C-alpha cells in the first residue's frame, strides 16, 4: 500500500488536507481529510511568512498521518515541503531526468539541500527522484514498496484523485462523514 497526502488552500474556506491509502492497484483503502483550517488575522500576523509552511507541513500533515488506520510503507506528498519527518515515511516524488542508476528496484541515496534517493522503477528509463526526511535505512523498504506498486498502477495518479476529492469536500459536494 502507498499513501497519498495533499494539502490545498481553498478560498475562502481555508486549508484542507486529505490522505488516501491505496492498494497495489490504486484502489482506495482509506481516506481521511481535515476540516478546513482558517487562521485568524492575529495568527497570520504572528506566524508571518512561516504560517503557510507550518500549517501545511506540521498542523495538517502530521495530524493526518497520525490518524491513519493503515500504515503504508511510504506516503507520497503533494509538495516537497510536506516531506518531513513523521510517524510514517513521507516522500515527494518526481521524475528525475537523469541516467538510469541500475536494474529495476535499484536505490541510490543522495544528499544535499534535500535528502532522498533515486529509484530505478523500470529498466532503461530515467529513475524517479524521491525527497524525504526518512532515515536512510528505510530507503530500500520504501523503494521496494514503490517498485511493486509501479508494476500494477500508475504511481502518481492517485494524487490527482486526492486533490479532486478535496475540491469536492471544499465545495460541499460530499458529506463529511464516511
Amino acid at each position: 500500500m502507498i499513501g497519498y497526502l495533499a494539502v490545498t488552500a481553498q478560498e475562502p474556506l481555508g486549508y484542507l488536507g486529505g490522505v488516501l491509502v491505496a492498494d497495489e492497484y490504486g484502489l482506495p483503502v482509506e481516506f481521511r481529510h481535515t476540516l478546513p483550517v482558517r487562521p485568524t488575522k492575529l495568527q497570520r500576523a504572528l506566524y508571518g511568512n512561516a504560517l503557510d509552511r507550518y500549517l501545511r507541513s506540521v498542523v495538517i500533515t502530521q495530524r493526518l498521518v497520525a490518524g491513519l488506520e493503515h500504515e503504508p510503507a511510504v506516503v507520497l506528498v503533494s509538495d516537497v515541503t510536506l516531506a518531513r519527518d513523521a510517524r510514517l515515511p513521507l516522500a515527494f516524488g518526481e521524475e528525475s531526468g537523469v541516467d538510469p542508476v541500475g536494474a529495476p528496484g535499484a536505490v541510490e541515496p543522495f544528499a544535499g539541500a534535500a535528502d532522498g534517493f533515486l529509484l530505478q522503477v523500470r529498466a532503461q528509463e530515467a529513475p524517479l527522484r524521491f525527497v524525504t526526511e526518512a532515515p536512510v535505512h528505510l530507503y530500500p523498504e520504501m523503494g521496494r514498496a514503490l517498485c511493486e506498486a509501479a508494476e500494477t498502477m500508475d504511481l502518481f495518479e492517485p494524487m490527482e484523485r486526492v486533490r479532486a476529492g478535496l475540491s469536492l469536500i471544499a465545495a460541499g459536494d460530499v458529506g463529511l462523514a464516511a
Partner: protein
Amino acid sequence: MIRRAAARRERDELEVVEGELAVPVDVRAVAPPVPELVPEALAPDVRVCELFDDGDDVVVVEPDIWEAVDVVPVALVEPAFTVRAPSVRLARAELRTMPLIETTVEAPAAALEPPPVLAARPPALDVMRRRPTPPGAVSQAVLRGHLLALFRASRCGSPSELQLVGIYDRVPGGAIGSVAVDGSDLVLRLVAGRRGRPTRLVVGRVRRTEQLVTVEIPA
C-alpha cells in the same frame, strides 16, 4: 753682698763636742695579760614545735608557678568594646500595596490547533485516469491478439465497424465499473469494494453507435 755674708758666717762658727748622755735603765720582762674568753652564740635559737599528723595520704599542692597573664588585647584593655554577632536572618518582606491602573490582559488563541480529521469517501477517489500505452510499446503479434479479443467482445459483424481507442496498462481489472474518454485520457469509474488484479485494458469504439467496448487482458 753674698761674699760678705759668707765670710761673716765662717767667723761665727763654733766647735761642737759629744756629751755623756748614757743613763742606766733597769729592764724587766713583763708577762702578757691572759685574755678572757667569752663564749658567743653562733646561731640563734631554733624554736621547734610539733605539728599535727596529716595521715598517710600526702596531698601535694602544686604551687601556681604561672604568673597571671593578661590576655586581653592591649588595644582593648582600656576602652570598653561591644561584642557584635552578625545575623543572616532575612527580614520578613514587607508588602506594600500600590494602586495601579487597572488593565485587562487577554490571550487570544495564537497557536494553530490541529484540525479534526474525518473519514470520507468522496466520489473522486473512485475515478481513475489513465493515459494510453504508446503503440510502439506493444508488438504486432500482441496487438493483433488484443484486437481480436476486442472484436469478439464488441459483437460487431465486421472489424471495420470497430475503432481502437487505446491500450491502457496497469488498470485494476475486475474493479472497473465504467469507462469514458476524456481527450487522450481514459477515465475509469471504479466499483467500491471490489478487489483488483493487474490488467491491461483494451478500449475500442463502435463506429456506428459511438459506444465504447473494453476488454480486460490479464497482465
